[in-house]
């Protein structure tokens, strides 16, 4: 299983990377939306993308829209990992094509639950 973590915070990428690698994922990273599109163009679609909302250059919402515009990424599950918890924000993300939502702060167990819901735990 392959995952991409998109977050401008080194710290948050490290936290998520540790969790995903320990679950057997091969992980690549990007610092913002534009960087993520570049990484995806090189490595191809990943099984899951964990995407922060507030990032410089291209935010998470714009990235979700761009990913969903590309048929090559149709199978990718996208989880928004963010402090944005308002109903409007959640609706915007889901309408744009995000699969699910994870609110910071989070535990590794909550990440596992999201992966399990998306069917990515058993085979990870």
């Amino acid at each position: 299983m392959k995952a991409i973590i998109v977050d401008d915070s080194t710290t948050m990428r490290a936290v998520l990377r540790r969790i995903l690698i320990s679950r057997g994922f091969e992980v690549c990273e990007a610092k913002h939306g534009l960087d993520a599109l570049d990484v995806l163009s090189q490595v191809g679609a990943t099984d899951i993308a964990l995407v922060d909302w507030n990032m410089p250059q291209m935010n998470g919402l714009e990235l979700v829209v761009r990913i969903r515009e590309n048929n090559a990424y149709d199978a990718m599950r996208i989880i928004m990992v963010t402090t944005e918890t308002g109903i409007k924000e959640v609706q915007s993300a889901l309408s744009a094509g995000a699969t699910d939502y994870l609110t910071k702060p989070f535990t590794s167990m909550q990440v596992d639950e999201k992966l399990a819901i998306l069917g990515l735990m058993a085979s990870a």
Partner: protein
Amino acid sequence: VITAISMADIAALTHDIWATMAGTDLVPTDQNVTLDKSRGYIVASVQIVGDTHYVVRLDLEADLVREAAGILLGVSPSELSHEELSDAAGELANMSGGSVKALLPDHCSLALPSVVIGTDYEFAVPSGHCIMESSFIASAGKMKLSILERRK
């Protein structure tokens, strides 16, 4: 608007962030703590922009951030770079700001965090009036969380 947020809310969200993400037990205290700036002092802040403009500001002893950042990044605190320390403080401010924003009834947005690290400086928010302040103590150091309202 800010009256919707209580000191208990601030204590709960702070404990949640630091305990969940950084394994650090930050205990609220009624005392107005004085930070020891001699070993480094960090201010991490994030703006909440809407009809009213707020700033959530964390004043932190550097040793407290070093311990938390070490846990977050999975490295020894002594091996942390300046950038890693800054990034961890920014992320803690980001989560604090997001949690405060979630308690506000109005629609608003969160800006990217700012971080200052040093030993001898003053940090000011222009036109910022402190409307809430809480102090916290952990084994590695002390922290103050302030919410400021920016008035034109």
